[in-house]
């Protein structure tokens, strides 16, 4: 195992230090997402693909994740010059997307998808377990199984075992893993997109930096390795934070680059619990004036809240991994958070605006 001693010790120490974090009271802005009024948003995703010598295809993810307590999709429509367009649902996780097909054309291939959804903040009182519907055996297996990138054996398992050793409950395990990820990872502004989430490589190299799809995938993998159901939730920030966190909200209605992946862990007595250690590291790096210490009051607030609560200025696309794109000649995508497209030249780079041009806008609307 290549996990370095200093890295491991840092995590171990954090368990003790976490109990001495400064209280959030007295902060200039209290970060306190609480289930309240529902907000309705409209999302417009527009793709424009340069004319190609042959057929072109595109796959546009839809905000279709459905949880009655905090996220209600309200349908999507589209306008396009495609020869065929259809709503498709991926079988394993239920991710929805629009699949478009163009024959050879001299004009750009264009599609504009308009989606609506309603959402409200989430907060779980982790001091009061209640009665929640248990996960089915199939769901428990789905969310504890490994994927090709979120492996649960080898270095992931040995790391997880050390983190949760001696934990008194599943909640304790979940919290220890959260604190470990917060303590030991870094947000890397140079990571393209949201990262990829190859957690075994991260742990083996000791290079524990990245963005949300790396850091929160690490949380999910470590949790699954501990036997706890966990999942990434892929989505997009759609509005500023009403709690004053510039780093945790969209800066304008143009949200083309505002993709953000979060994580959930299933705990008996609480159900799916929202967590977001990657956003704690985002606050550390980006919240003005930047490069804040973990002891900074805003960081401490975020760290305390983001184990159990999400501000829903963000939409949820899906929880899918390894999504096979129907009609594609290429391999499955690791996750479906960005629009995808292919021409006769092959799959376009969804992270490169020079090869795949798209614009996403979001605005709050009346219900």
């Amino acid at each position, binding site marked *: 195992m*290549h*996990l*370095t*001693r*200093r*890295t*491991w*010790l*840092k995590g*171990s*120490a954090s368990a*003790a*230090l976490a109990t001495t974090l400064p209280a959030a009271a007295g902060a200039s802005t209290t970060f306190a997402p609480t289930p309240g009024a529902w907000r309705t948003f409209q999302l417009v995703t527009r793709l424009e693909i340069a004319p190609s010598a042959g057929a072109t295809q595109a796959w546009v993810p839809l905000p279709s994740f459905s949880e009655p307590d905090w996220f209600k999709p309200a349908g999507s429509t589209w306008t396009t010059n495609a020869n065929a367009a259809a709503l498709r649902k991926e079988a394993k996780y239920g991710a929805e997307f629009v699949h478009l097909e163009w024959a050879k054309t001299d004009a750009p291939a264009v599609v504009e998808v308009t989606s609506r959804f309603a959402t409200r903040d989430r907060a779980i009182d982790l001091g009061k377990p209640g009665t929640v519907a248990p996960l089915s055996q199939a769901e428990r297996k789905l969310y504890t199984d490994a994927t*090709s990138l979120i*492996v649960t054996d*080898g270095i992931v398992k040995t790391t997880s075992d*050390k983190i949760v*050793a001696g934990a008194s409950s599943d909640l304790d395990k979940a919290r220890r893993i959260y604190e470990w990820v917060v303590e*030991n990872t*870094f947000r*890397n502004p*140079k*990571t*393209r997109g949201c*990262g*990829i989430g*190859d957690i*075994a*490589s991260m742990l*083996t*190299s*000791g*290079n524990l*930096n990245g963005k949300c799809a790396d850091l929160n995938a690490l949380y999910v993998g470590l949790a699954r390795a501990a036997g706890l159901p966990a999942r990434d939730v892929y989505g997009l920030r759609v509005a500023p934070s009403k709690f004053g966190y510039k780093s945790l909200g969209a800066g304008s209605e143009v949200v083309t680059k505002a993709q953000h992946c979060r994580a959930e862990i299933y705990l008996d007595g609480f159900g799916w619990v929202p967590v977001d250690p990657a956003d704690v590291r985002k606050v550390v790096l980006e919240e003005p004036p930047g490069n804040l210490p973990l002891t900074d009051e805003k960081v401490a607030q975020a760290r305390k809240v983001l184990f159990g609560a999400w501000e829903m200025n963000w939409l949820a696309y899906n929880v899918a991994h390894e999504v096979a794109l129907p009609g594609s000649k*290429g*391999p499955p995508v*690791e996750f479906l958070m960005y629009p995808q497209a292919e021409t006769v*030249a*092959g*799959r*376009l*780079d969804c*992270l*490169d605006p020079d*090869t795949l041009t798209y614009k996403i806008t979001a605005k709050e609307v009346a219900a």
Partner: protein
Amino acid sequence: MSVRIAPEARGSSSTVAVTRRAAALQVLTCAVALLYGSAAAEAPRRLEPFPHSPPPPFTLANLDGATVVLGDLRGSPVLVHFFATWCEPCKAEFATLAQLAARRPQIKILAINVGEPAVRVRAFAAAEKIALPILLDADRKVTKAWHVSVLPTTVVLDEAHTARLHVEGDLDWSRDDTVSAIDALTNRKP
């Protein structure tokens, strides 16, 4: 008193003065270490004997769309290097792989990109000025068949294409002990 701090990027570390608070943290971490047992001292990463069953031959497309058959290189030692564009340590490693290629031109180096679109890999190769042959394992089948679970990973084949050495994680291919290890199995005199 000084202490190394955890690097933000692979291969970098820094030494900082230890404050009283940090020293107190060290005391705490040492106490915690006793709870979990001592970790082994960190040693520089190096080539190790290949631990898996023999990997199968492969045929993959390169960035130009041409087919590359591993078997066509039989008679030459080959470094099969698995990487991805998102992998930060991989970038720096290409520089020392290029040095090795210049120092031991009889060794063939094949860099296999894992699971990314060709257009992205082409842009990466251009930006990083990578002259080594790059192959595309878009569906990760070769990566899996070669037991690769970590990027970067490199497997060293001898002239008969028996997998002899490997390393998980990045390696300095200009290091003398690395070159000597390869020379030893290729019977080349340094």
